[in-house]
Each structure stands twice: as structure tokens, then as C-alpha cells.
């Protein structure tokens, strides 16, 4: 995009989040909001990341810990169900993986170039704790 000259933008060190006026923004999903070109939502910062989290829905219990702890609102959840990761804004900090309580974890960090299908195929199995092996149910 061609950048504006000195006389081609609004005055002040000021940016607008949305194009035009907003209404009921809290109940509008991010993908339905008219974010402006200058909103950080519009800009991809994917290249800041060297490791990425991948999500395995087979183990997810929708506890929403990752959604709460993500510092960049990059966990996409709908109707309290984990949907996936916003890779335009995720910076690969790994906090979501750290707080994931399932066994095995439903989120794991991989190198940025890791193929998702292969990662899911090779996902670690449930780790058995020693106590559990002593009192086997069946």
C-alpha cells in the first residue's frame, strides 16, 4: 500500500480502530468488525514467531484456559469451544501450551515450518503416572 504524505492523514499521534462508527461492538465477532487499516487486527505479525502452537482437538476439554491466558487474544473460541489459533497474531510465546491441563496436552509447540498433519499423527500418547498403573481399573 502506498503510504500517505504529510498532508494525507488525520492530525495527531492518533489512529482509529474501526472504519466509521461502531454499534454493539461487544456482541460482534472479530471477523465481522470493520477494523481499519491502521488497527493492529489488520496487520499480520506472524513473522515475529519462530515456534508455533498446534492444536489437537481430540484431547481438548474446552476448559478455556488457553483463551484466558493468551496475552494476544490469539486463541479463537466460539460458544465456549476452542476452535483454533489466530496465526496472524500469535507470537509463539507458548503460554497456551504451558497452561493446557489435558494429558496429553491439546496444544504443543512446534517449529514454524512443521507440517500440521504430520504433527497430529505423531502427537504424544497419554502419559501414564506410576500411581495409576498400580490401581488399574480393568
Amino acid at each position, binding site marked *: 500500500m502506498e*503510504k*500517505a*504524505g*504529510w*498532508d494525507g*492523514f*488525520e*492530525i*495527531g*499521534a*492518533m*489512529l*482509529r*480502530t*474501526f472504519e466509521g*462508527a*461502531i*454499534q454493539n461492538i461487544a456482541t460482534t465477532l472479530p471477523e465481522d468488525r470493520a477494523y481499519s487499516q491502521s488497527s493492529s487486527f489488520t496487520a499480520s505479525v506472524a513473522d515475529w514467531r519462530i515456534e508455533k502452537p498446534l492444536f489437537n482437538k481430540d484431547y481438548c476439554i474446552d476448559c478455556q484456559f488457553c483463551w484466558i491466558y493468551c496475552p494476544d487474544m490469539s486463541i479463537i473460541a466460539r460458544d465456549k469451544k476452542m476452535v483454533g489459533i489466530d496465526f496472524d497474531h500469535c507470537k509463539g510465546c507458548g503460554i497456551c501450551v504451558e497452561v493446557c491441563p489435558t494429558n496429553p496436552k491439546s496444544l504443543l509447540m512446534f517449529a514454524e515450518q512443521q507440517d500440521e498433519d504430520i504433527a497430529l499423527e505423531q502427537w504424544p500418547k497419554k502419559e501414564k503416572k506410576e500411581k495409576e498403573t498400580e490401581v488399574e481399573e480393568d
Partner: protein
Amino acid sequence: MADTMELRDIEVWDGNMAASQALRQVQVDVVAAYPITPSTPIVENYANFEANGYVDGEFVMVESEHAAMSGCIGAAAAGGRVATATSSQGFALMVETLYSASGMRLPIILNVVNRALGAPLNVNGDHSDMYLGRDSGWIQLNAYNPQHAYDLNFIAFKVAEDHDVRLPAMVHQDGFMTSHTAQGVHTMTDEQGFNFVGEFQPMNDMLDLDHPVTHGVQTEEDWHFEHKARQQHALMTVAIPKIEEAFDAFEKLTGRRYNLVETHQMDDAEMAVICMGTSVETAMEVVNELRAQGIKAGVVGIRVFRPWPLEQLAEVLKNVKAIGALDRSSPHGTVGMLFNEIAGTLFNTDAKPVLTNYIYGLGGRDLTKAHLVSIFGDLKANMDAGKPTTPLQQYIGLRGPKLSFF
């Protein structure tokens, strides 16, 4: 709704009371302040008016002048009419935030009661703090007496808040000589004063919840230059005509005339001193006495210090043969600011007066009429010789061996 204060046509006010009455009459929404001598009574009086129901506003007590201007910036970005006051060391602590206010294009009014900068610590008036603000991107208006301190506040609000300008403005007055010297001040009624400035018209305010904005964003080499250029463009091309418009409207309302460059006996003056603040009035008195002796002397007072009225000043000085630039701030390592500005103003013009520089009045030292008479004596000798007969920079009113440079 604030109570109306019944004022006499002429009130006996010092410069501080005059400024605070103006803040009351324009109904400033927020004053965030950390009081400092000699500006303290301005914010103290505002707090008093606010507590007694004479202004619908908020007084925010903060922990430093840096916080005071930061609070003003927040309130202005939120969409309020905002003002505060400071002096000297407090002004110095504000400097970082002054640049934020102007860069963010927030029309805050700062009353600066000019005072020396330590060390040595000193509470009296000189122009060191005013000079410190001159690159900060603010409009700077200069009062010579309490009447000006009152009037220029109204001018400042009207210009700064104009949507074509949107720049903060300082109203300067001399510490103690103006701020604590009571004089007769012609007043406006509350209604007249408020209506001159009008209701605050918000712009990009954070409290407009339908149009969310981020204020104080970061830019790097890709945008910073364009923002600063745009700010300079507004200051250089929009502010001056808007100030002149406001001066005209104010004259129509009150009969009191202000000019970018104030002159006294300049029509046929062969020599002139140029100065600011209370010194202008002392110089006027000396010039009247010299005129009685047939000496064609004049005075130029800078009313609008930033933006610098280059063209208007060049016009006023075009026929003058000798000029004394009187700086009430130690330039620390070069000639005085007024010397440099006037040299720059005249360099490409046909006028080639002999220009010399006088440093005077630091830390509240008096500039006496005798000092001014001796300065005009120097200027006369320079005019007759057609070149400087003295060093370019001299110290006036200083004890000890005569001090001069260049």
C-alpha cells in the same frame, strides 16, 4: 451549572489572579496541577472557584509537574477543555510531556509564570523557562502585565482549540513582576468571556465511544517525519492567521488591541531595543524620555514568541539602523536567542542594522531605566559608526568587572 461571579469593570488583580479568573470564565473542565512558586495562586484560585461552585470542573492533584501535564494530556485526549500552570523547575520537569501534548495535537493551555532555572536555586523572574519551551511545538504568547495575562488566556483558548490549529498554547508572564503585582485589570462579564471562546468542540475525543481512537501511538522512520512536518505546517501557516483573527475579534469585543509584534514609537525610529515581558514597559518609559530629548528611539515587544513572527518583525525593523536584542536568559555558550532570531529575520532583507546583544535580569535582577539609557547610548554610537562599537554580547546590571563576549 456554575454560579456567575459579579465582577467590577476594573478589578485590582495581580497576574496570577487575572489568569485564574480567565480559566474560570472559560469554564476549564480539568486542571491537573502541581503548584510551584510563583505560579501557585493560578491553580490555587481555580481550585477555590471550583470548590465554591464558580466553575464546573475537576481539580486533579498529582505528584509532580510531569504528572500534571500527563494528566492534562489524558483529559484533553478524552475531550475536555484543559489548563494548568507552572514555573521554572516544574516547567523543566514538564518538558518531556510538552512534546507529547503538541505532537498529539491537544489544545492544552499552560500558564507559565516565568522564573529562573537553578542552580543556584532562585524563585524570581527571568525567561529561562520560557526559552526552554521554544522548540516544544507550543504556541507561546507573552504578557507584559496582569491585563495581558488575563486577555491572552482567552486568545490562547480560542486559537488552540480551533480545529484547524489544535495545538497547545502557553501564556507567559514574568514571575512576581507581573504575577504578584496587583494592577487595575479591565474585565469581561462571565458571559462575554465564555462566549468569546465558546463551547469546547471536541475532536477525536476518547469519550466518543462510537468512534474508538488510540492516542499517543508510536511511529518510526516510516511516519514520524510526516507527523512532525504536519505539526510544523499548522504552527507556521495556520496559527499566525488564527492568532491575528482572534486579536481582531478580541479588539472588537473589548477595545484592547494585541499584535504579533508590539511596537512603541517605531514609525520613525532609528534605533530600537527588542525585549519581552515587563521589560517592554520599562523600555517604553525610557523611550518616551529619550523622545522628549529628540532621540528617535523605539521599542519592539515580542507578543507571539512561537510561532516566530518573522515577516511582521522584518517589516517593523526595515528602517532601523541599530538594534539591541535584550535576552533575559543565559544563552550558555552562544549569543542570546533574540539576537539569533533577529539576525535570522533580517539576514536576507535589505535592512542591515547594527545588531548587538544584551544579557540582563537573570534571577530577578532589576532592569533599570539607567540600564536602558546606557544601552540606547551604545546603539547611538553603533548607528553613527555604522558598525558595532561594543562587543556583540554584553552583560547589563552585573556586579564585578565588565563582562562581554565576541
